[in-house]
């Protein structure tokens, strides 16, 4: 895919003041270019600062150093062009399923009937018809996360930032949601940046996998994934090409995880 750069990070770093007085470096010298319409995944051991990196791209957390631009303009805060799905459902629990999905729709310049229609369409997509008037507490974890994804899609962002969005789901629901994400990505021209520690998920979903080191988090390697995307899932995941690429990434992540664990 020959595409223009959508998001460019140059030498981005983030350090916190530690409670004891020292400095904790969460992210160090991250330089990443994400092309328009590209699906990029960042994998790394837990605690490596990959979520922090995503929050910096989202504009929720300030960076300590470096520059970051989207479409050539510097990112200085959150924006509607960058939607985010968090690991834990950040749904509004006082709103019903439908009201949650309408929340971003009401803040777009759409006629009222189109807002309703779009909400109904998204509810259909996530398979929650009949649950419109339920509150999040009445749903299973998987259902809530589907609502969270639908709510983010309702804002129609150019870039999707996903922070381990399927981490809390059971294996079956996770696969369904992964395929749904792929379908949305192919049907639209959205750019996707996914954070995960699940190497299989990273290989299956993305075009490019970036590997982050144990803290301080640095991008230490990058693997371009080439798979026959037209194959059905079971054939794709059992192919030799899949296994080979999965192992290559897995070994690199494992080395970092061991380094983090023995520190």
């Amino acid at each position, binding site marked *: 895919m020959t595409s223009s750069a959508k998001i460019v990070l140059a030498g981005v770093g983030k350090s916190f003041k530690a409670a004891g007085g020292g400095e904790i470096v969460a992210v160090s010298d991250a330089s990443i270019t994400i092309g328009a319409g590209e699906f990029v995944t960042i994998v790394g051991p837990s605690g490596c600062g990959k979520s922090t990196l995503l929050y910096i791209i989202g504009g*929720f957390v300030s960076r300590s150093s470096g520059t970051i631009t989207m479409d050539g303009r510097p990112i200085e805060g959150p924006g509607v062009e960058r*939607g985010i799905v968090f690991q834990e459902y950040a749904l509004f629990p*006082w709103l019903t399923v439908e009201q949650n999905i309408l929340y971003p729709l009401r803040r777009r310049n759409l006629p009222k009937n189109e807002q309703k229609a779009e909400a109904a369409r998204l509810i259909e997509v996530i398979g929650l018809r009949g649950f419109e008037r339920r509150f999040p507490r009445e749903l299973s974890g998987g259902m809530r996360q589907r609502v969270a994804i639908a709510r983010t899609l309702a804002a129609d962002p150019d870039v999707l930032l996903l922070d381990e969005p399927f981490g809390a789901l059971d294996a079956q629901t996770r696969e369904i949601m992964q395929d749904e994400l792929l379908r949305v990505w192919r049907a639209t021209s959205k750019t996707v940046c996914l954070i995960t520690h699940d190497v299989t998920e990273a290989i299956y979903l993305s075009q490019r996998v970036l590997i982050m080191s144990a803290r301080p988090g640095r991008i230490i390697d990058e693997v371009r994934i080439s798979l026959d995307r037209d194959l059905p899932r079971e054939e794709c995941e059992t192919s030799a090409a899949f296994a080979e690429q999965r192992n290559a990434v897995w070994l690199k992540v494992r080395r970092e995880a061991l380094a983090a664990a023995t520190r």
Partner: protein
Amino acid sequence: MVPERLQPWLKALASPVILVLLWEATVRAGLVDAELLPSPTQILVALREIGAAELMPELAATLFRIAVGFALAAVFGVLLGSWMALSERANGFFYPILASTYAIPKSSFIPLFILWFGIGFWPIVLVVFIACALPVVVYTFHGISDVPRLRIWSALSFGVSGRDLFWSVQLPAAMPEILVGMRIALGFAFTVAIAGEMIVSTTGLGKLIFSYGEGGVYASMFAVISVLLVVAYLADLLFMAFMNHYLRWLDRGHVSGGHA
């Protein structure tokens, strides 16, 4: 079998009923002097003698003062508590004032209020207002301060900020805490309204309790106290019912009934 929707009300009545029965038995057995502690049946007789015609206007006067003071405090408390949570400067300015008033019995303001407003409606309303505002401010402050950041971030990513963020995310997210503060305030409202009426008022249940007590008509005094008790308890039950309905979206187990 009791219908399921009546069961909470039945539970709420069980322990008061048992207490009243024990009380009756104690007085009848002659364990205490009935002159000093009249039995529940004596109190009921006294209550019938006083009668609704005399009682109702006093009850209405007290409830009206409580309602006005509580309502003003609810609005003021949510606004000030939110402001303090959202602005460090506001917090720095108001916190010392609130912290220093917290320990003062609110009824001690009454002489000052009489000086300002004379005897009547406003001194009571004002002291109710002050007593109720504090818990509402404190609980609102904590509620607004503790909104999970991911909920705020979600809203920010939808382009929501400022007033829209406050009304559509911060305030609803803080409502469970705010309502706990209001429930505490409601209890305070009854306490200080009665205390205030005993000191300054010419009307209200507090005035009635005081004058019966002074006249040594203890059965009648207890009769008014028991009316007050029932009304205050009903007010709390009603508030809890409202709270549970309003917070029906909240995960069960997080609804704070007891720790308030």
